[in-house]
Every structure is written in C-alpha cells, then in structure tokens.
C-alpha cells in the first residue's frame, strides 16, 4: 500500500494504566485523541495493579475507540491501518489492546502495525512540532524508564544512556508513598516541592560525571535513610530536595549528550516530562547552549494513542505491516530486532 499524507491510522494503547485510541492523518495530523485514565482506580492501592488494569482496559477499550472515531467525524471505512503498542508494558494489559487492534484490522481488512511504546514516545514531539531537525537527543523519563536516545532519523536511533537500576519516576513514586504524599508519586512530589526548600538537604547526585547512564536506587535509599534518621523533617523539604537531585542529574546528562552528538535540540518525553522544574531547567539549559528545547504538552508526554498512530504510520511506510501472529513483549527494548528491518 502507499503510505502518504492521506493515510489515516487508528492508534491503540493499553500498555499500562491508560486506555487510549487516536486517529492520526499522514503521521502528524491528530484528528482525534481519547485517553481514559485508571489513575483513580489505582490510587487506592498506591500503584498500578496488573489484573485491575487488564480488566479496566477490557471495559474501556471499545468505548474509547468508538469515541475516537466519532470525535474524528469519520466513517470507519476511511481508516487505512490499525497501529497498537506491542511492548514494553504489563503483559495482561498489552494483550487487551493487541487482540482488539488485530480484530479491528481483520474486520476492516486493513494492515495491522505493532509499535514499540518507547519508540512512540520519541514521536510525541513531532505531533506538535513538525519542523524538528535531526539529530535530536530525546530524554525519556517515566515510572518505568529513564533513557537518553539519539534520534538520527526516522527509525534510526542510538541508545546513549539508561538507568542501571531504578527509573527516575520510580524514585518519585516510592518516596512519595513512603512520605504519604499520594499517588501518582510524580505529580505529588512536584506539588509538594512548591512549599519546600530544594537546598534543605543535599542528596547525592549519582554518576554525575560518569558516562550517560543513570542510577537512582541509591538516591532513593539515601532519602529513606535520612527520613528514618530525622523523622521530624518537613516532607515538603524532602520532596523538593529529592526533586532537585533527580533533575540536576537528568538535565546535566541530557545537556552533555546533546553536546556530544551535536544535536539541534533536546526533546522531552514520558510522564516525568510533565514535571515543571524539569521543563524549566531543560528550557534554560538549551537556551544557554543555543539549541532547541522541545517540550511536548502534558497530554503528549504521558501515555496516549496519537503517538502510537504516528509511530505506526512511520513504521508502515518504512517497514510495512506486522504479521497478525506477532505477540506482546513485556520487556521489549527500544532497539528491538523483532521490529527492525
């Protein structure tokens, strides 16, 4: 099939706790994007519960897809392909989306495209700014991932650095739960930090000048040790000091990565990219270095299906459809051979 600016892709996303569907035309024109979050459902448990997530996806998926089609104001016969996240994520959650997307593709007799969720995050920025110039450095930070990727062209990536233990968002989640600040932990730390002093406690900045990999497990331990030793410390000061430590490392390494590869700019992606201090400090660092800072809206940084449809459009054009017997891959890496030509 010809894949061009008239190709309309339905994207489906169910890898974690958002059920999402979107219609994207020509790889970058978002016709509709619907996200149904399970955050309220998981808040009482203080985290995503896999079986709860799968059941919720099962209930939400049909209405979410229907709403994306109705809001897009198109007839389903106009859809040219169905793209869906096949990994990484929770296996039970992934399978709900993959099965539904394959069924839709089969029923409509259009191609099915399996998409890597991490690769899709790299595309989120292109949906809001179609003039981005390669090479770019993408800082992808969420509850499950922390990585720096050089994007040399569409489909051409190089992993520059990644966490060797915990993700940055995981450090926020776990400390927020320990301090009883609420779920999800990222926004809770962001909010609490407003009232705290970021210089109150000097937490360690691990591996600051040691390559482009990250390590946040020791920082988490250091925060917990501190609070156990000083139980009367103000939670807001702990939150603000933790946030500053994490963001110092993220910004420092993103900036060095951009310098090393001669990037035209730094792109943020993933749920932690909604953090206000991270956005402000990346913007300031890029301005100082004379490169672009591409900060997608909160809606595009967090899980959504528009980025899945966009990545699906690029994959369809470069590689073609995926076989219908392709499975779901819970620990799929960004540079997965199964999806590379």
């Amino acid at each position: 099939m010809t894949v061009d600016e008239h190709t309309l892709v339905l994207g489906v996303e169910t890898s974690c706790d958002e059920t999402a569907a979107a219609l994207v035309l020509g790889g970058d024109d978002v016709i509709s994007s619907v996200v149904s979050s399970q955050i309220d459902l998981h808040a009482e448990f203080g985290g995503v519960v896999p079986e709860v997530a799968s059941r919720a996806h099962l209930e939400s998926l049909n209405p979410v897809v229907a709403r994306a089609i109705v809001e897009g104001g198109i007839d389903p016969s106009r859809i040219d392909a169905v793209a869906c996240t096949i990994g990484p994520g929770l296996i039970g959650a992934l399978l709900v989306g993959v099965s539904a997307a394959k069924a839709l593709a089969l029923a409509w007799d259009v191609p099915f495209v399996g998409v890597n969720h991490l690769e899709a995050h790299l595309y989120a920025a292109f949906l809001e700014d179609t003039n981005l110039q390669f090479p770019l450095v993408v800082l992808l930070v969420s509850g499950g991932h922390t990585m720096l990727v050089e994007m040399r062209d569409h489909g051409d990536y190089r992993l520059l650095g990644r966490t060797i233990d915990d993700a940055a968002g995981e450090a926020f989640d776990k400390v927020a739960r320990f301090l009883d600040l609420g779920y999800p932990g990222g926004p809770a730390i962001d909010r609490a930090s407003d009232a705290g002093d970021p210089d109150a406690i000097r937490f360690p900045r691990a591996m600051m000048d040691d390559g482009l990999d990250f390590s946040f497990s020791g920082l988490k331990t250091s925060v917990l040790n501190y609070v156990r030793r000083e139980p009367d410390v103000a939670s807001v000061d702990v939150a603000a000091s933790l946030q500053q430590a994490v963001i110092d490392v993220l910004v420092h390494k993103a900036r060095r990565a951009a310098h090393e590869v001669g990037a035209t700019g730094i792109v943020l992606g993933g749920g932690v990219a909604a953090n206000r201090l991270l956005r402000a400090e990346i913007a300031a660092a890029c301005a100082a270095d004379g490169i672009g800072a591409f900060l997608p809206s909160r809606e595009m940084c967090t899980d959504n299906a528009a980025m899945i449809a966009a990545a699906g459009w690029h994959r369809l054009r470069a590689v073609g459809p995926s076989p219908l017997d392709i499975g779901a891959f819970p620990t799929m890496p960004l540079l997965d051979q199964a999806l590379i030509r």
Partner: protein
Amino acid sequence: MELHTASPSDTREVAAAIARLARSGDIVLLTGDMGVGKTVFAQGFGAALGVAEPMTSPTFTLVNSYQCGSLTLHHADLYRLERTGEVADLALAELAEFSGVLLVEWGEAAAATVRDHLEVHLDVDDADADALDEVTGRTIEISAIGPSWAQRYGRLTEALARFAC
C-alpha cells in the same frame, strides 16, 4: 543464620555466595523495607550468575528475565502486588521450573505460595543507626524453608562465615 554486612559491596558478596550455590528450580525470596539493599543484593546475585547487562528494577515490569549460560535468572518484584492478593496470578513457581532461578523482591507476599525456598531478610543495622553519616550496615537473616536449601545449608554457612554475627 544471621549475618552483618558493613557496606553495599559486602551485601553484594553475600548475594554472590548464595548465587554460586544456586541451581535450576531454586527460589530466593528477598524481604525487608524500602531502601535496605534489595537492589544491591539482586545485582550481586545476578553478577555472580553471569548477568552482564544492568539489572534494572522490575517494579514496573513485575518480572525481568536474564539468560546466563544454561540458566535463566527471573528477577521479580511484588512491590505493587503485596497488598492486593494477586501474587498467585504471576505463577512464580512455574517460572523457576524450567532451568530457572527465581529471585523475588518484596517476597513476603509469595512465601505462602512457594513451599521450598530460601528466605533472605535485610534490615538496617541498629548498631549504626545513630551514626551521623549514611547508615550502611545491614543485618541479613537467612532461613532455608523446605528440603532443597536445607541440604546446602552447611555449605552456605561455611561460605558466609566471615559475615556471621
């Protein structure tokens, strides 16, 4: 047995000593609060089995698997499940059945579903608690539950003798 480690590298060594005695079908449950060194233990355990890549936290993915020679190390994390009674859905014991060694963080919740296992409980060492610097000392309590580790307990005690309290 009860052990004392003075630093993360000590804890890594204890983990390595256990890993060197591990064999296919083994289950090791790690218990203890947040920040007591479960990640450090897991890294030491994996390195001794021959895992070359970084062992990242399985909190999000629930289980990460690593091929090390003829063995597969399954590194699981029940942090998000411990309060929900969904542990049985993961079918942990089945993971270890085929040439696998299963290491479970936040393993408390799995103790009832796996019969034969080694339990490793980590805790901050109170003796160091009033030190001004970072508290790096840990107590590690190891118990063999069921026959399979009981047979190796003597060799394990010997290998860990220098950390004994």
